[in-house]
């Protein structure tokens, strides 16, 4: 086992790719392909559990580090590491992996072998993205994600799949190419592609602004942040269920992960200066996404727009630049991965039965499929942030962390606006729920079978995790906090004289000392 545990990160990242090769080589029948793929995904999950078990909670630095020279005489390296943030996102990925494959068990009936291989390759790319500690390696994984996803949407998608796939691909590429130039520039300055060396760069404010903009664009498109979100509904709606789940569950997290891991700590001054703009966009996205979701006629599209709204929260939390807000951001990433992933799975369930997702086609489904309705409601509630379920933990930390952030101007106004998203979220989700599940059961929906055992098997783990994350997020946060402190350290270093958290008496973040004085004087 030592050869596995010594390179556990590599194994975790590439086990799915190995599985993909196996699927291609040995998956002669669809059934065999599915089984091999599931086995690979499960094996990967086991590997990631090993990570969780041996992760040192109090250590915020990268663990299980692997380093091997790759290019340019080692200036570019195959460098993997795992800190608290990566840990959870990797776990999310490996957790959803088998479920996604299970969900595609029947839904993908043709060209199963390719589909399974793409799913597994995608998983490798995603895990690699979370683990890479070398900028070029990161970029390679980042871009490599596009290809399998592109095929998943384009081949197994819905009516307008081609349009959606190309749009997805091009949008994401637009952002990332600028990031590439920025990476190159930094590489030139730093003399190495190592993230650690990038962090040592001393850049002027102007340089930081440009670089930050280039990075942020890439990530904002991936998130997607309003107004870069237009690819998302198309991609989601056209993608097959498995694709949507991965897209919503993990792929969107890449953007927020990138912001947190790279854009903010690499360019702290720019993050302070430009972050508020992104925070505003995030809030606009929260509200906009919710409003647009409200008028959707297609369940999947509604869920897609809800993602825009939810990820707005994440971005807002990240740009509070406080540990609390960022922790909330990460929790919300996981929560969104679970709840929206589950929602897409559920939409897939009904789509498999009725081949439509139009809200108007349904009504009263709770009569025909009570278990399905119950699960759907449960996930809906998680999605709208009911306390005790995962969504609340994230939203709470984000909003609370942002509220008193001394580093984000107008933080309280932003939170107040963002919090309306909580109300709006309830409106559109429950309205959808009402129209789909409540009321009288239509003729066409009579006799629809309830959840099958396989569907239960897919959903149940997610439901359990939704509760676990809502009730007992402490172990998660415990491992997250040291890493976040470390990541946000460059920002903190700039404003070390300020307390980054706390209410100031109507004094802007720029004069925290004055604010403290005012507070004291008032007493």
């Amino acid at each position: 086992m030592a050869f596995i545990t010594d390179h556990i990160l590599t194994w975790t990242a590439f086990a799915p790719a190995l599985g993909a090769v196996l699927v291609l080589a040995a998956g002669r029948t669809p059934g065999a392909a599915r089984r091999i793929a599931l086995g690979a995904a499960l094996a990967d999950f086991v590997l990631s559990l090993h990570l969780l078990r041996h992760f040192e909670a109090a250590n915020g630095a990268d663990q299980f580090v692997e380093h091997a020279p790759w290019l340019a005489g080692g200036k570019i390296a195959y460098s993997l590491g795992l800190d608290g943030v990566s840990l959870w996102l990797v776990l999310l990925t490996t957790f959803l992996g088998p479920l996604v494959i299970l969900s595609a068990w029947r839904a993908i009936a043709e060209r199963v072998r390719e589909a399974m291989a793409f799913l597994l390759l995608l998983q490798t790319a995603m895990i690699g993205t979370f683990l890479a500690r070398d900028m070029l390696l990161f970029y390679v994984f980042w871009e490599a994600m596009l290809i399998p996803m592109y095929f998943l949407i384009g081949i197994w998608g819905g009516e307008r799949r081609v349009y959606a796939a190309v749009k997805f691909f091009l949008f994401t590429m637009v952002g990332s190419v600028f990031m590439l130039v920025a990476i190159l520039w930094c590489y030139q300055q730093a003399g190495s592609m190592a993230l650690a060396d990038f962090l040592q760069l001393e850049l002027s404010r102007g340089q930081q602004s440009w670089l930050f903009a280039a990075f942020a664009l890439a990530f904002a498109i991936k998130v997607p942040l309003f107004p870069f979100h237009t690819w998302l509904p198309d991609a989601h709606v056209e993608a097959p269920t498995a694709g949507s789940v991965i897209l919503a569950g993990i792929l969107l997290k890449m953007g927020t992960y990138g912001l947190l891991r790279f854009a903010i700590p690499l360019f702290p001054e720019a993050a302070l200066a430009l972050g508020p703009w992104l925070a505003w966009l995030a809030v606009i996205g929260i509200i906009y996404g919710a409003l647009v979701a409200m008028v959707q006629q297609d369940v999947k599209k509604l869920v897609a727009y809800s993602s825009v709204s939810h990820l707005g929260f994440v971005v807002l939390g990240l740009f509070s630049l406080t540990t609390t807000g960022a922790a909330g951001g990460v929790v919300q990433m996981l929560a969104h991965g679970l709840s929206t992933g589950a929602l897409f799975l559920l939409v897939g369930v009904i789509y498999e039965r009725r081949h439509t997702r139009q809200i108007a086609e349904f009504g009263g489904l709770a009569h025909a499929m009570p278990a399905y309705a119950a699960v759907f409601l449960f996930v809906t509630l998680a999605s709208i942030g009911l306390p005790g379920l995962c969504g609340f933990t994230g939203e709470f930390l984000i909003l609370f962390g942002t509220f008193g952030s001394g580093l984000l101007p107008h933080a309280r106004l932003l939170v107040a606006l963002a919090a309306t998203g909580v109300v709006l979220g309830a409106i559109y989700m429950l309205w959808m729920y009402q129209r789909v599940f409540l009321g009288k059961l239509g003729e066409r929906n009579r006799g629809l079978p309830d959840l099958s055992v396989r569907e239960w098997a897919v959903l149940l783990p997610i439901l359990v995790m939704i509760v676990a994350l809502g009730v007992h997020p402490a172990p998660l946060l415990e491992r997250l906090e040291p890493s976040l402190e470390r990541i946000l350290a460059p920002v903190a270093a700039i404003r070390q004289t300020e307390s980054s958290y706390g209410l100031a008496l109507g004094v802007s973040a720029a004069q925290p000392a004055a604010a403290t004085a005012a507070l004291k004087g008032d007493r």
Partner: protein
Amino acid sequence: MESHALDTSLRWIVLVPLLGAALNGLLLRRMPRRAAGLLACAAVGASFLLSVAAVVRLAGLEPHHRLLADSLGTWLDVAGVRIELGFAMDQLSAVMALVVTGVGFLIHVYSLGYMAHDPGFNRFFTYLNLFIFAMMMLVLGENLVMLFVGWEGVGLCSYLLISFWFNEEANAAAGKKAFIVNRIGDFGFLLGMFVLGAALLPHLAGGEGLFSFRTIAAHTHHLAPWATAIALLLFLGATGKSAQIPLYVWLPDAMAGPTPVSALIHAATMVTAGVYMIARMNMVYVLSPAAMTVVAVTGAVTALFAATIALTQNDIKKVLAYSTVSQLGYMMLACGVGAFAAGIFHVMTHAFFKALLFLGAGSVIHAMSGQQDMRLMGGLRRKLPVTWPTFLIGTVALAGVFPFAGFFSKDEILWKAFSDGNPGLWLVGFLGAGLTAFYMMRLVVLTFFGDSRASEEVRHHVHESPATMTVPLAVLAVLSVAGGWLGWPHFLGGANRFEQWLAPVFARARTPPARSRPQARSTAPRRPTAPPRTPPPPPSGSWPRPRCRWPCSASTRATAPTPGGRRWPRSCTPSPAASPTGCC
């Protein structure tokens, strides 16, 4: 940190109903009806018994150390934000816990009969148990976040139960409306919580739960600059939950749910959560006279306004619904004038008689084959031998007739409003009380007196409800009569034990933490007379000491007995005198 007794039974008070719900929910299909119902009742009953036991233990403690605590661990702890997954029971929680589990148990039993023929029987009990769980979480939560968890949880159960008969689009819409309106309130709640937390966080030492009520109480002086904001935002949450203007709109629609639900959630327990929360946060509210005024005015206006609406309703449940809104207004009024104990007292008595009224109404509806329009009832007096007298008891209790429960609580509120120097508020409340008596009498007359206006077929089927329904009615009737005696006021020769019991809770906030032992008593001699309308600005350099705007607390009267007549303003004659005039 005050010492407190650890008591792991608290968690079971909360979790047993959850277990009941879980068992029922997971075995939804396979569970026989009877078993499901009994399981649910047993769960709530157990919860009740545990509560009683806990209260007994609590009462055994020295008054100012009356606090039972239990913790399931830390919910989250990040960057100084430490939130316990903890439960605590003090005197206030104890009252609420008993009311919720007690009334809840009765309504569970009632529902066994009421829902006996409903296809969603098991589901119904699942939801009910879930609700008790959430409500107990709200009541026993050790901190504001736990309270919020329960707060949202009851909102959810409310949603589920209102749209219980979701076959009707209207019911589903009503449930959704309730949830969303509550969410608007929650928006304020969240923000209020954030302001509070953000103001506290920089001042906390390690290990203190950020939103813990004890922490808040210990750090009130840090909250002073933000008290108004916190109080008002939280109050926005309370208006949602407790159906105050302007967020009362959901409650009448909520009558779409089964009647036991209306009794339990939309009359007895959940809707009073807002009042409970304000009472719980009294230490913050008293810091902000402005916020108190807003609470009081909102409560008073709601009380009157809802009463006027109730006058015009023909649906028996709608009348009761608006009556509930009105009574909630009284509770808010009490909180707004600083009479938290009176507010909570009214919460309790109201729980008894309003649950009784709703269950009685349910019995009527049951008898009338689902008919809810009072214009099509009449003459049920003889046909419903148990329902009729119990209903009448509820009515007079609500109307505030001496010596029924409603008299003591409502009277206390009005008196406190007056003595606080707010004759305007008192007048509004007084008018509302008159209207209450009027519309309740109208309801009774229309329903039980005269000749039946129902169709032949319905008339033929009218029958008294089974014992599972009538026994709870009877128990509640007893409580509606005797429940108020706990707060028998001094001027009638009592000791107002209820207020005494709660006094430490509400005294805590008013005592500067600098002093080692908060003692409400110590303030008593200083406040023999009513304070001026506008408070003097707090002395700078020291923490703004909350000003008692009412002349006395329970302890005041306990320690400095004065002639009751002096306390009673002439214009504020006790309700019994007023009720007959309002009654036609």
